[in-house]
């Protein structure tokens, strides 16, 4: 993206977490939109076979978290891990047979989510420690004062389509437009933590539940209409928030594949360009070279 930033002034910090186990309670089952009980895998662990560019709802699950699900045992450390890591940050495995292999952050959910090459990811398991080179919070687009930026590494910004246009707005390439009716769980929470679940994304439910978002892909850059995520997440007419889809299927109703927010501002500050190829899959190049 052709845009002037303050990237040279940003702090880089090493933060460490570990791959967290999948968790359950003694009941196991949850209920879907129609009150039907379901039992499906979802958050935590290392979820294999799903990467940036894959259809988010392809795998049956509940809050499918692609790749590594990373957190820290200490609450305050974990908040820092969530708040400081940005999409595109490089992750290095510190223990186990995959030690030294690299991945990149694709977003936050209950955990920080990390995509890796499938053959590297296959060697990682619960309890393995990872270090993340956290850089990006504090990033500003110097010619776009109305746009709040968050969770966005300079590496991701560099590869996004668009930039400052001749009228002074920000051209931003997005794969999909998300209407405000789709905004599910996550509304009202801070936007440096977890993501925004999208409804209208349930391929197995009847059409009354559909908003045409069943084919979102992991890593898609999307524009959320009438959403202001500058200081939290909420409805605000004529504001736009830009996000990256970081999670897959959710069967729990009111939940679904969700974007981690990277930009938010008045609609007039953006020139949204529909471009179905707009996906963060290009970040894979960062690790292919180095691993």
């Amino acid at each position: 993206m052709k845009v002037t930033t303050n990237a040279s002034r940003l702090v880089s910090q090493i933060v460490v977490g570990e791959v967290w186990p999948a968790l359950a309670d003694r009941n196991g089952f949850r209920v879907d939109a129609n009150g039907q009980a379901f039992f499906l895998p979802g958050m935590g662990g290392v979820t294999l076979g799903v990467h940036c560019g894959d259809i988010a709802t392809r795998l049956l699950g509940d809050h499918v978290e692609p790749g590594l699900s990373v957190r820290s045992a200490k609450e305050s450390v974990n908040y820092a891990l969530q708040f400081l890591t940005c999409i595109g940050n490089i992750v290095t495995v510190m223990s186990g047979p995959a030690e030294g292999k690299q991945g990149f952050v694709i977003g936050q959910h209950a955990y920080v989510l990390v995509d890796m090459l499938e053959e590297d990811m296959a060697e990682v398991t619960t309890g393995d420690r990872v270090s993340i080179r956290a850089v990006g919070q504090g990033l500003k687009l110097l010619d776009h004062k109305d746009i709040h930026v968050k969770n966005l590494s300079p590496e991701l910004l560099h590869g996004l389509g668009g930039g400052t246009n001749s009228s002074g707005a920000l051209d931003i390439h997005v794969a999909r437009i998300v209407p405000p009716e789709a905004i599910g769980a996550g509304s009202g929470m801070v936007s440096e933590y977890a993501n925004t679940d999208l409804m209208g994304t349930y391929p197995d439910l009847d059409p009354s539940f559909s908003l045409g978002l069943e084919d979102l892909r992991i890593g898609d850059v999307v524009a959320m209409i009438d959403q202001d995520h500058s200081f939290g997440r909420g409805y605000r007419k004529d504001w736009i928030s830009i996000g990256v889809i970081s999670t897959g299927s959710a069967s729990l109703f009111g939940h679904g594949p969700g974007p981690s927010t990277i930009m938010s501002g008045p609609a007039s500050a953006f020139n949204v360009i529909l471009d179905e190829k707009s996906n963060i899959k290009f970040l894979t190049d960062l690790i292919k070279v180095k691993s």
Partner: protein
Amino acid sequence: MTNFRVTAAVNSLGFVGHSESLSDPFKIDRHGHTYVPTGDGGIVLNYRVGDSIFALDADHASPGVSVSHPNSDAAYSLVAQSCIGNTAKVRTGAAIGATGVVLGKRGEGCRVLVLFAPEVMKLIRPDDQISIETEGQGLADDQMESRIFNISSNLFSALSFKKSGEKTFKIPVRTIFESKYVGNGIGRPMPLWDVDLQVYELPAGVSDIKIGDFVAISNLDARFNAGYRKGWISVGVIVHGASPQPGHGPGVTIFLSGPENEYELLSDPQQHVGLTEATLLALGGKAT
């Protein structure tokens, strides 16, 4: 006809909550400005049913007292089983013996909102024990696809939204909100949560929105978790006031949800009267 004769009544104990804060006293509004939240839990004295959602410069203020339980499992049960209209009795402290009534519930902090008469409110203190005769979950109307929840059999019968043989619920409401206004609470299980409406000013043509008002939400299926569904209606009661926080706002405890052909919504944006304090307190004082 509903199956009100078969719902279980269970006495459940809760404790009057304190006002709580983190070590950083500030919250952040949607413009990025900081504020110190007031009225969010505990015992709010100067706010009553019938007051505007914008009457106080506060954050999620609710009339009455917020009641919960220090054991999280007991708190979940207390909130899930408590229903609008349930009787509450003060078991300890200066207000011992007084009765009140459940107005609604809040997901954040797992709280039941219990209304008492003003003279009782002055005597209640944090940690006082409140026993709630929880009843209402399981209420059903077998002729309808809609689900009924979070409301006591007595109150639901008294409201008489649907008479025997009728095919629709006729419900007076202040106004109808589109589902895109639903913020915090979306995707959560409705026995445990209210939903916040992301409104920061009155909608055009609506003279006021008051605590106790009935409101409807279009394209929202709230039978289990709340979520978007075209052609579905959810109806609830306004139980707390506005909030400056993004994604938050006045809260609705939803008690009815189903396909729109089962509803005749009688919207009156100027003169609507929903639940009144007199109606609620009379219900709370009545032995069941």
